[in-house]
């Protein structure tokens, strides 16, 4: 059955193995056109492998997919004609200038020298890189590189733009700039599939989010739906006295009727709370029980907490991102 024309990406049972390791273990994905779709998961979950398969960079071992109506296996070149991908590491020629990188890609797409130059100048201006246009990319800051890397994906307006962890390693200002850019692009009709390790990023940008773990999709929905599984927020408390940690944890568990998580070193307790009133009551109860707090904070649930809620297991320590 052909996929619905309203879908930018439709994947069924995608599998990729590397030797004995199964990186992607049968993933279905339906991404409506013109939306931002987030793939959320820890390091090693299979996010990048999934993206690389959809971008024709590696062939799936099983399953099928269409991108903007083109079959991934039967017509990879047609898929390449409607996609662009910005990987986790800047795929730029460091020795060339920013402008030369864009002109090179324009000419590979088939523009003449002049048209490629004009498009490069437009993009450099749009990404606030005009002043650095004639400098070698190796002199760029991390934020500038990421902007140029995204610009390099927009030489032709793609049907689908793949962004692999677009803000990893960026400072907050650069991150906000990239977020704004992603929203503007989506508003102009480009479908965006992005991966991230940050629930907040998926929450800020994506209309729908798929949560991936060990190569499988363990949940999919809107940000609101995912948060409903974890509570709207998380209360973090640090008892002033180490001896009272167990008592505090027991009290919170009893009061809120849910499991209490502990930070790696054990000092901080985290518990999902459905609303501010319950958080307030929990803090009051701790103080009433004569358990003084060194620190307390309310936060959005982190990826770790979403994972905990979805799988009942914390992220392995080496993969934890909080």
């Amino acid at each position, binding site marked *: 059955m052909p996929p619905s024309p309203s879908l930018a990406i439709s994947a069924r049972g995608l599998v990729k193995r590397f030797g004995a390791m199964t990186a992607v273990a049968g993933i279905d994905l339906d991404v409506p056109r013109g939306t931002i779709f987030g793939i959320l998961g820890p390091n090693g979950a299979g996010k990048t492998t999934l993206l690389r398969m959809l971008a024709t960079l590696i062939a799936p071992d099983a399953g099928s997919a269409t991108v903007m109506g083109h079959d991934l296996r039967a017509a990879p070149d047609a898929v390449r004609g409607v996609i662009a991908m910005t990987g986790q590491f800047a*795929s730029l020629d460091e020795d060339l200038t920013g402008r030369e990188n864009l002109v090179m890609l324009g000419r590979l797409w*088939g523009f003449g020298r002049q048209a490629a130059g004009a498009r490069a100048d437009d993009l450099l201006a749009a990404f606030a890189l005009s002043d650095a246009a004639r400098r070698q990319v190796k002199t760029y800051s991390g934020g500038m590189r990421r902007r140029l890397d995204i610009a390099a994906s927009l030489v032709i307006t793609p049907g689908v733009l793949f962004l692999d962890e677009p803000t990893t390693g960026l400072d907050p200002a650069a991150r906000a700039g990239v977020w704004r850019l992603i929203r503007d692009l989506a508003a102009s009709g480009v479908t965006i599939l992005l991966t991230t390790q940050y629930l907040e990023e998926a929450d800020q940008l994506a209309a729908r989010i798929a949560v991936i773990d060990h190569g499988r999709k363990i949940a999919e929905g809107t940000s609101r739906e995912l948060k409903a599984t974890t509570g709207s927020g998380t209360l973090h408390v640090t008892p002033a006295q180490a001896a009272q940690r167990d008592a505090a944890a027991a009290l919170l568990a009893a009061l809120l009727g849910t499991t209490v998580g502990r930070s790696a070193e054990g000092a901080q307790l985290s518990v999902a709370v459905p609303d501010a009133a319950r958080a307030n009551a929990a803090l009051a109860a701790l103080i009433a029980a004569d358990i003084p707090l060194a620190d307390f904070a309310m936060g959005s649930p982190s990826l770790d907490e979403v994972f905990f809620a979805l799988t009942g297991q914390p992220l392995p320590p080496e993969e934890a991102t909080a």
Partner: protein
Amino acid sequence: MTTPALLRRVDRPARPSALSNALVFGWRAVLKFKHVPEQLFDLVMTPIMFTLLFTFVFGGALAGTPGDYLQFFLPGILVQTVMFNAVYSGMGLSTDFQKGLFDRFRALPIWSLAPFAGLMVGDLLRHLIAGGIILTIGLILGYRPDAGLPGVIGAFALLLAVGFGTGWIFIVLGLLVRTPMTVMTFGFTVMFPLIFASNIMVDPATMPGWLGGFVAVNPVSLITTAMRGLMDGSASAVTIGLALIFPVAMTALLAPVTLLIYRRK
């Protein structure tokens, strides 16, 4: 950041030809000369030192006078220069892969061998420039090609063929090996015995028999013999044919292997 330039829809132009794709990559290689001119320094310093060292330190002892030795040595040092240069392009390819640059190329609807064709254009330019510099220094020091300009043109044509053939070895290595340093180490490990156990530096007549046997069939020796012949006018079709076996075989064997590895990667 402003958005109008992004929001304006830019559609794909007509699909360019494979040749056009390859030329863009050739242009990239030329830009690299502009931005990283020091790479030429890397390429010619070693052969210049070898030329000076062998001519003035060993030359007299090996051939009677430094001048006579230079006449013997110069065609060979050109071969050595080109073969070592090929190692550098393998390192460049490995760097491109490490940086993820090829991911962008591979996600484009272009002729899949175009990046390699461009790489070769850059290689051939490098060989021409480095060879030209070494020849110029040789001429200044007193080297005289008896066959004149036609001989030199013929010798450089052979040199480019050798560079092209050797280039495939390091393209394959660059594709297979993860780090540029490993490409270099591996390349030099293979190249040193081939270069030294050849007739580039000395007449193999005084070598032990087993080594002489290897030197006689070493492709580097066959190429060097043809280079000498072309530059002094004594080359025969047979010596040139023997010299071409290696680059032709490497291309025929490794170009398909390159494509296979690249498509699978």
